[in-house]
């Protein structure tokens, strides 16, 4: 049943995206919004497909009905503080695969951002 999918937190995230865009763009210009660009980290706990589905569901019949979400997926990367190597991690583990050290820094993969709004010209 589809309502189970949109009951996930992607629905509330989609509402937040709409709110951010509605504040950044004048109400009478909302229908000119072609694309909303987002960055979503691999470890942000957000499923891009579910977010897209939720976004379409809540914008249907509104000024944003034809707006596309363009999601840039950001890999989860850590930098080892001991050996300096930067590794793209497939899991959430933050142990350096090169030297085994657990003093590492997360350098990307936790983003959940609206970065750009593209508007059609008059």
């Amino acid at each position, binding site marked *: 049943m589809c309502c189970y999918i949109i009951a996930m937190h992607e629905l509330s995230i989609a509402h937040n995206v709409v709110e951010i865009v509605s504040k950044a763009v004048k109400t009478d210009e909302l229908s000119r919004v072609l694309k909303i660009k987002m960055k979503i980290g691999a470890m942000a706990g957000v499923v891009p497909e579910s977010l897209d589905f939720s976004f379409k569901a809540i914008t249907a019949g509104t000024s944003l009905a034809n707006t596309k979400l363009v999601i840039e997926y950001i890999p989860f990367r850590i930098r080892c503080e001991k050996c300096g190597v930067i590794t793209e991690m497939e899991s959430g583990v933050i142990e350096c695969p090169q030297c085994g050290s657990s003093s590492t820094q997360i350098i990307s993969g936790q983003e959940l951002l*609206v970065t750009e709004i593209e*508007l059609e010209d008059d």
Partner: protein
Amino acid sequence: MSVITLERKVLEKNDEVAQQNRALFQERGIFVLNLVSSPGSGKTSILERTIEHLAGSVRIGVIEGDVQTDLDAQRIARFNIPVVQLVTNGSCHLDAKLVQDALQHFDLNSIELLIIENVGNLVCPANYDLGEALKVVVVSVTEGDDKPLKYPAMFRNASILIINKIDLLPYVNCSIELLRSNALKINPQLEIFETSCTTNAGIPEWCAWIRRHLKS
């Protein structure tokens, strides 16, 4: 075509309200824990044992979050402490605004420890700051030792891990050592407690930790 460039956090509104909550808690000297886990790992039982252990010496308030029913609030109300039940009606997590609204039902001068029991879910509550001092993630041994690897965000955002139902270890295929090391691979700073709400094992240690963190 024109472009508006912005670098806005999607959950900035929630984060703002969470900061308001946090400021209020600090001003009133209330230590706030956000208890998260998958459904059935024993959050409410840990709360009950914690309240029993601290009753009489620590003034506790509880916010219960569930998708439906006030069954958990009923369990807590037996202890005669202030409790507010939040029913999310389908939503899979609590957010800062829900907590802010719930605070109106408390006399904030009469509590020093507020425990927020989040909706049972290891995914969504990780994203939503409520204004708590710390997140406490509970995992029971019946869930298996690979839980931290499967739900890394929650274990990364938590400061405390409570491994619950350790009395069931002889009956389940779970290595507590592996569970600990998996959790520490995600978050090396995690402080870990092992508890059983049936035998009360580990509850005194957990409560002693709470006492040390309460504002005097």
